[in-house]
């Protein structure tokens, strides 16, 4: 018999004090957010993402995989992840030429000649899953929030569609889904990572330029990646606690 006197008093007390429905709600409150997958414990993870710019070849696999996996609208101005091509002529990092045709979905048409004295590279972008995220700060109802495992998520059944968070994101990672009129953004493929899988973009990257990491797992290769490389985040002056780490991020990238 699993019930001792203390537990009996606790459960009876709750039942007497609250209605059964409220007692159930109280249990959920005590437990934190309901777990997404049976064996997944929010408190045991702290998700981060790393991109190795030196490995990205601009194939657009990640963009296509993301749009398919997450049912992102196909129009060229809705992206959970996209790839930018940087062309820095003669080391002039203040005036880079940047393009991202269809977010890199169709790859990049050849544009620059090798040996023209310029620097060329690709920069994959996605939500920075900031730990002091300016977007969740401004949401008037808390429909977007920082999950205890470090993912910044959106409750689409609660979002008003006021677009304040879109304005507040310094990185341009959010958009309004025209089908639901609610905000959408990278969820780190939450439905996959809570089942022990990696994200669709990481899965489909042919060069391993993208890496999902769990910083609460001491054996995660992310620790080694962050240790041996010169790591930068986008717009560090924004102090958003970004967890999207780049290796090889050039000063021209914004």
């Amino acid at each position: 018999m699993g019930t001792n006197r203390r537990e009996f008093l606790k459960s009876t007390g709750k039942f007497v004090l609250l209605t059964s429905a409220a007692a159930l709600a109280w249990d959920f409150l005590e437990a934190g957010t309901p777990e997404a997958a049976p064996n997944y414990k929010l408190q045991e993870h702290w998700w981060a993402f790393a991109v190795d710019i030196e490995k990205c070849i601009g194939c657009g696999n990640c963009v296509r995989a993301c749009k398919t996996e997450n049912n992102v609208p196909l129009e060229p101005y809705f992206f959970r992840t996209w790839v930018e091509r940087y062309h820095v002529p003669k080391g002039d990092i203040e005036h880079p030429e940047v393009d991202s045709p269809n977010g890199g979905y169709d790859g990049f048409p050849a544009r620059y000649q090798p040996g023209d004295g310029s620097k060329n590279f690709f920069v994959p972008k996605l939500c920075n899953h900031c730990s002091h995220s300016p977007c969740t700060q401004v949401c008037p109802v808390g429909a977007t929030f920082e999950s205890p495992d470090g993912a910044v998520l959106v409750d689409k059944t609660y979002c008003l569609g006021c677009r304040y968070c879109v304005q507040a994101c310094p990185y341009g990672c959010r958009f309004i889904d025209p089908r639901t009129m609610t905000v959408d953004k990278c969820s780190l493929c939450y439905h996959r990572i809570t089942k022990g899988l990696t994200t669709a973009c990481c899965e489909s990257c042919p060069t391993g330029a993208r890496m999902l990491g769990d910083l609460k797992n001491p054996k995660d290769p992310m620790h080694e990646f962050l240790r041996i490389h010169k790591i930068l985040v986008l717009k560090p002056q924004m102090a958003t606690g970004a967890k999207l780490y780049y290796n090889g991020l050039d000063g021209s990238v914004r």
Partner: protein
Amino acid sequence: MESMIHGVEGFMYPNEIELQWSILIVLYPYITGLVAGAFILASLERVFNVEAVKPTYRLALLTALAFLLVAPLPLQLHLGHPERAFEMFLTPHTTSAMAMFGFVYLWYLMAVLVLEIWLDYRKDIVLMARGSTGRMRQLYRAMALWSDNLSERSLEIDDKVGRFITLVGVPSAFLLHGYVGFIFGSIKANPWWSTPVMPVVFLFSAMVSGIALVMLVYMVACVFRGTVIDMRCLDTIARYLLYTFIIDFALEMLDLIHRIYESDESFKTLDFMVHTQLYFPHIIVQIVLGTILPIGLLGLVQLMSLSEHQRKGFYATAGVLTLIGIFAMRWNVVIGGQLFSKSFLGYTTYKLDFATREGLLPAIIILILPFIILWVLVKLLPPWTQQEPAA
């Protein structure tokens, strides 16, 4: 660099190409500003005992109420899920400036404006209930909350409580609009918005627009009613308009000079924008036509001795220009802040539709609506019953 998408110059993050906030969000600070400004003008009479503006006291209050009733409408129309708007009251996210809007709004509408108007009008409402018949009598009786008490003691209490509410109302009006400025000023991701001066600039521009509006409404109302404009009142209002306008302009110039001198990472982009896409609405309409010219006109009246007729002309022109100028200011903040990329590498354009949910037509309707409400309010609660200006 050419772009693959029409209307985009240079590079924008792909998700930035579509503008998020439309002309409706331009109307929101514009209308709230008119409310706050009109209320502050009304408070001059009551709190600071400026006798001269008394003829516009009640008119200013009714104007503030008419516009305040419309203020949430553009927001509501803009939301992707208007039916969820009430969640802002039930589960407000306390770190969000926007979440607090509902509370500030309700506080201002119910606790300040409606109560102040009611207390000021209570005697008139009771008298109108006594003097009317049928449905109108029922309406006025309901508006008086079925009280018929006009004893000296009760009127004394009305006045005392009314004065207290006005005292609370002035900081509330400051809060209402200063806070609207904070909604924009606190967005660190957007350098066009992110400045601590923003709430103060919004506040003073609100006072400027509200004072100009009440001044114009008063002049037009006098023309329609065939009564003589109280020139002492008009001159005083115009003088207050001039003073607040000078402070407002000084603050805006301070912000501008600061930006130019500091020339931070965003400066080149913003500077280019002000010299191209925003040149007409910002330099021409907002600064030259909407600020320098009305300040000049109002200043001239102070320096020269003009006839009554000339002064009226100057005031009317300055008032209209002011309202256009402040509208341009709201436009340049809201729309201007979305025309450049947060990468500082490109620009997009705003395409204003006509008969869509966020188009020009609903915007025009929303701007006309307060005047219809004001007309009804003035019919219901005539603001001119006390003493008419001497002919």
